[in-house]
């Protein structure tokens, strides 16, 4: 790497060094680098000195210590005897859960709202305008608290809204049956995988055939039928591959099934609607960036308006949409740290508890920064790859 860099460097004459634009640039860059390094060294030396003076130990060894506290929403096994490190993983998974749910919902909302706002239907476009302007201009924290307050003022546990004795909706969230998989479930899973691969094969085949002969094939509807039909048949053959654990009312709460807490729901709704409003504007800009000539040309070829949107406008709009969409995804992930306001136990919330119980402030903050940085870099790497794939291919 350094060999390559050295090859790039031009010879510099030392005599009139300062008057050579190239040499001066090099020197200034070096000085800036030195500055940054010096600054980082200063703050770390300062921190270490102060920690030693305060008699506090540093290092990440404390992550193996027992946590002694409980966490209400955990995607992996966790009890008060687990370690701080495991608690952080539980928090990280909660962050990833709410971010992924948020990104999916925000994308759906954003695309629908963006397209609807451009629709000729006056009512639809005005409703979307109001939605976008209201959610975009109210601080996210207030929206999160609004959703939480709304959800916690739902009926109390004993007056739950009951759907067929299976789903219960109350101010402690949504209680739903949870599946218990028997060993025969393996066959069902295999049949689902088989159906999906058959469907992919079909789509590829249909596309190739269309390229060759121009004949279309209803691959979407046939594929969907396959995906649904095959597992359903297998399900009928097997004897109860899945047993449902249904919620039962007890003295205080429901027992059995699983519970989606109002904290998760509130955070999810708030993040999805807030980011969705921004995405809708990005989508609108993307669609408007496609010249009307394209639409008119497509019309003159006899394409239907839904086809024009799907085949002509959206693929071209995507090139404009993806880069700012990436920043919105990153924003959503980082905004999920506002979870602490309503007690959703994400990485920041659990990290804060660990910080307080163990006293290792610097280490916990470092972990927060590294984790959010990795999440963001990961998301952006994926989106850059996707962007490259969608970019204009010049022939």
């Amino acid at each position: 790497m350094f060999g390559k860099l050295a090859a790039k460097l031009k010879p510099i004459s030392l005599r009139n060094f300062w008057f050579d634009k190239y040499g001066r640039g090099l020197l200034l860059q070096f000085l800036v680098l030195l500055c940054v390094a010096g600054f980082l060294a200063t703050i770390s030396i300062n921190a270490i000195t102060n920690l030693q003076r305060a008699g506090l130990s540093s290092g990440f060894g404390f992550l193996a210590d027992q946590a002694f506290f409980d966490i209400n929403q955990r995607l992996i096994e966790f009890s008060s005897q687990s370690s701080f490190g495991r608690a952080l993983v539980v928090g990280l998974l909660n962050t990833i859960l709410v971010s992924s749910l948020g990104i999916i919902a925000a994308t759906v909302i954003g695309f629908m709202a963006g397209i609807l706002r451009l629709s000729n239907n006056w009512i639809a476009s005005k409703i979307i305008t109001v939605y976008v302007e209201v959610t975009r201009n109210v601080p996210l924290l207030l929206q999160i608290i609004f959703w939480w307050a709304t959800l916690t003022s739902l009926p109390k546990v004993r007056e739950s809204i009951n759907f067929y004795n299976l789903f219960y909706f109350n101010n402690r969230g949504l209680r739903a049956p949870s599946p218990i998989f028997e060993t025969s479930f393996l066959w069902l899973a295999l049949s689902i995988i088989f159906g999906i691969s058959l469907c992919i094969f079909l789509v590829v085949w249909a596309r190739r055939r269309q390229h060759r002969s121009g004949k279309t094939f209803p691959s979407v509807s046939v594929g969907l039928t396959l995906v649904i039909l095959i597992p359903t048949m297998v399900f009928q053959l097997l004897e109860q591959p899945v047993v449902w654990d249904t919620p039962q009312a007890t003295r205080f709460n429901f027992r059995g099934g699983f519970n989606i807490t109002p904290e998760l729901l509130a955070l999810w709704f708030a993040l999805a609607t807030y980011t969705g409003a921004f995405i809708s504007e990005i989508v609108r800009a993307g669609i408007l960036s496609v010249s009307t000539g394209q639409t008119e040309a497509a019309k003159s070829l006899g394409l239907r308006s839904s086809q024009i949107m799907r085949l002509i406008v959206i693929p071209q709009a995507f090139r404009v949409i993806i880069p700012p969409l990436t920043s919105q995804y990153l924003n959503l992930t980082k905004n999920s740290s506002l979870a602490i306001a309503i007690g959703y136990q994400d990485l920041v919330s659990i990290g804060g508890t660990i910080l307080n119980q163990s006293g290792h402030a610097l280490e916990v903050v470092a972990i927060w920064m590294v984790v959010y940085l990795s999440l963001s870099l990961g998301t952006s790497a994926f989106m850059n790859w996707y962007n490259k794939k969608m970019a204009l291919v010049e022939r």
Partner: protein
Amino acid sequence: MFKGFLIGALLVAVIGYVIVDGGYLDLKDSSKSAKVTTKVAAESTLKKIQKRGNLQCGINTGLPGFAYTDDKGNWAGFDVAYCRALAAAVFGDPDKVKYVNLTGKNRFPALASGEIDVLSRNTTWTFSRDVKLGFTFIGVSYYDGQGFIGRKKLGVKSAKELDGASVCIQTGTTTELNLADFFRSNKIKYEPVPIETNEEARKAYLAERCDVYTTDASGLAATKSTFADANQHMVFPEIISKEPLGPLVRQGDDAWADIARWTLNALINAEEYGINSSNVEKLAEGTKNPEINRMLGSEGTLGQMLGLDKRWAVNAIKAGGNYGEIFDRYLGKNTPLGLARGLNASWGNGGILYAPPMR
């Protein structure tokens, strides 16, 4: 061209500052200060406070009885009274306090970083906080224990019947840990509902987001006193932990810890000796009791030993009265909290409040 020179000069200046300030050249004392003895560091805490002209005291974000704003918008309460007494001991003026409101979570970083001089925020004295977090607890101002509050209509008589209940807790507290221990040792399940402040926990409990709310018994009494339908709720008989609450300072400044410790002891001893806010000035002129004379400065040099004025204890007691007066004013029978002295009575009156002698 000129621009290039300007940028260059600026960079050199910045680097120079970093090198000097980082102590790499040893031009300033900053590199030596790391090695100073605890004695010097401690003196500098008192000096720093005197130079600043006020005491920075960490208190609750709001807990009736302990730290709340009165009708004039001033902070008042049991914890606040200690801040005022300490400021009076240092400055002779109880109003020279800057209050910093802290949650259960950010109180320790605030004290460790030096943002506050003393933390008086119903904080439990525990082994790990004292030893591992690098703090010094200067005494116990209130002997407490963790309890539960719930609605009477639940029909629960004991906390052991709470299997499957949702429990509101403040995060970053000892109560969070006690709760986990309690349910684990009794082999019953619960859903923790973590909340940042007492006020938010109160709202969540009233919205029935949780079945019961758990915190220190004094805090439960304080919170219950604000309910519109207080008689619909009950505090369960179980006390599941020991919660000795008291003020604390950073470790490593022993002289400052001494000032904080003996101010608290002076308030406790004052009650025992019968010194209160109305008779303190008269007693300070001299009495037949040498213990009182030493404390109030008419005999001996106790104030001087602390590096304070000889009237330090007089000022501290005048600020809000002795321990008993403070307790009665903010927590006692005639307040909405209506707490009995119980363990917090003086050792002569059946309690365990016992301060070392002023000698």
